[in-house]
């Protein structure tokens, strides 16, 4: 990073209008020996204060890479960001110096990772790791930091927090570890919280508890929440709006209710159709045919065309733009009307 723009950090509660965080036409590439992997190809989404955006997609769709680009924790190289903006309260984070970004990271935009066991440092106590936020960023003493850590562990509903603060990550259960991860991320009241598959590694019952905790915390603090997941079930309960990603692009953007009612992109439709449903028991489960695309060599035109039941000739030649369906809804499919109407060809 050799950007030299003065470090204009966005003010807390900054420009009143406009979204809290806006990703705009973001491109991320990885330079590899085999060629350039285009992991993110022009992603745009926004999240406002108190709003929950669910980013949905299978592995390799670029949803995690986008999140890591927002945090600024991509390894560069091999990653390169050739185009795009990530505006946080109006300031483009990509133009900030590394020092200024470090100020944003953790304090104003925080992140939770999928596997808390590997994401927490095994050799430090959880109290040490949570209080590190206060010691490093707030200059607190060890004792005060530990007090804060206990408070936070209480807040994320870890029983016997006062005793457990001296335990190591491996001594907790999976759900408790994810709570510690959450406690650490909300320590400094961030304005945006990115949760990257926070419940994938957990049991179903624990998943619900963690999602509930996240929703409660968000209500209390009015932070913007970006929930990255591949699980449509998780999304329905908590998200306000959904961005569906495929091969590094947003293919559909919609409020959560609309998308469940009638998807406007064949890929979203495929995802919804492949959820097992009790009322259709006995019938063959729908599966999207074909394989996710090779990011080294994307199909021409629409990336989804080789797997698409709605494919026409122009799908192979013209990449669809993000068609606006309504003020809050868009789809990157030439034939979104047909999809919306549920006509299969």
């Amino acid at each position, binding site marked *: 990073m050799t950007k030299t723009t003065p470090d204009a950090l966005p003010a807390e509660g900054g420009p009143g209008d406009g979204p809290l965080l806006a990703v705009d036409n973001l491109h991320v590439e990885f330079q590899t020996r085999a060629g350039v992997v285009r992991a993110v190809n022009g992603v745009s989404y926004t999240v406002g204060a108190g709003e929950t955006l669910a980013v949905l997609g299978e592995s390799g769709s670029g949803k995690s890479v986008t999140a890591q680009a927002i945090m600024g924790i991509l390894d560069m190289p091999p990653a390169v960001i050739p185009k795009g903006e990530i505006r946080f309260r109006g300031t483009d984070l990509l133009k900030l110096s590394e020092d200024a970004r470090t100020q944003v990271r*953790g304090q104003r935009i925080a992140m939770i990772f999928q596997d808390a066991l*590997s*994401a927490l440092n095994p*050799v430090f106590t959880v109290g040490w790791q949570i209080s590190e936020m206060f010691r490093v960023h707030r200059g607190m003493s060890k004792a005060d930091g530990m007090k804060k850590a206990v408070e936070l562990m209480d807040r994320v509903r870890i029983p016997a927090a006062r005793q457990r603060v001296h335990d190591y990550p491996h001594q907790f259960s999976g759900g408790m570890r994810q709570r510690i991860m959450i406690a*650490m991320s909300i320590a400094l009241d961030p304005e945006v919280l990115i949760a990257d598959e926070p419940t994938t590694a957990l049991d179903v019952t624990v998943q619900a508890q963690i999602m509930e905790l996240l929703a409660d915390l968000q209500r209390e603090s009015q932070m913007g929440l970006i929930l990255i997941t591949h699980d449509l079930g998780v999304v329905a309960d908590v998200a306000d709006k959904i961005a569906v990603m495929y091969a590094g692009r947003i293919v559909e953007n919609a409020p959560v209710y609309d998308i469940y009612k009638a998807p406007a992109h064949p890929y979203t439709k495929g995802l919804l159709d492949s959820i097992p449903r009790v009322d259709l028991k006995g019938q063959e489960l729908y599966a999207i045919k074909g394989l996710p695309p090779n990011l080294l060599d994307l199909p021409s035109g629409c990336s989804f065309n080789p797997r698409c039941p709605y494919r026409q000739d122009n799908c192979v030649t013209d990449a669809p733009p993000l068609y606006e369906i309504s003020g809050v809804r868009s789809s990157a499919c030439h034939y979104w009307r047909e999809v919306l109407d549920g006509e299969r060809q």
Partner: protein
Amino acid sequence: MGRYVIRRLIQAIPVLLGATLLIFCIVFALPGDPIAALFGDKRPDPAIAEVLREQYHLNDPLLLQYWYYISGVLFRGDFGVNFADIPVSQIMAGKFQITLNLALTALTMEAVIGVGLGLWAALRRGKATDTMILASTLLLISVPTLVTGFVLQLLLGVKLKQWTGADIFPVAGTFAGWRSYLLPGFVLAGTSIAYLTRLTRTSLAETLRADYIRTATAKGLSRRRVVGRHGLRNALIPLVTYLGADLGNLMGGAVITETIFNLQGIGNQLFTSVYLREQPVVVGIVTVLVLVYILANLVVDLLYAVLDPRIRYE
């Protein structure tokens, strides 16, 4: 923790017994009659020779001899006497100190240079510095102690003195204090420095790929704190293991270095005793070295538990 120590101590007993028995068998298979050797060219009085043989248990079966010996060592700290009635522990004491000094000098150099170079290489991974450091470790591993010893003795010990007039690295003997250990210490440490450099490099590079490093970065910590606190603390674990286990190797491998630099250490003594057929001294020295090896490994195990909290509760 206490139970862990006890378990490790109990596990060490068969290793100690096995290794000393093995050495005992090898050494006492030495051909020739040590009693006869004691008298040199003179032919000993058969009666006196018999008394001596009885005194040194030379007529007993090997296993029984071993038992007399090892019980003395373990229960009374008695390493026996050589055939001139000088206690083996007395012969060993001073020599042991010299070898220990040498090995500790080497170990210190290894830790400082090896870890330092390894960190440097890991942080410059894939760049010219990294390649240079890797290439020099390859050279350091490939040049046998025998060669580094003589070449450095010539260049740093002799030529440097001729050119500068200052005796920076005294060559032989131990009379110049700790400085006389610098050159032999480096020669002894050579290969280990190279291995430790490589180990540090891979260990840190691997640690820096871990998920918790990404978390630490996401917490908004400076690169310095991420690498220095979160990375190094984890990368240290295999390094400590290597260093601890290497103390035994260094002491046991000192014989070549001691011969080249004319240090009167335990390796040199062992070498002499092998030629003089002083079996009690030979067995004594190797027993002490086996003990050092076992103790060093025990310390490493304990340190491991301290450094990695995941171990303690297993």
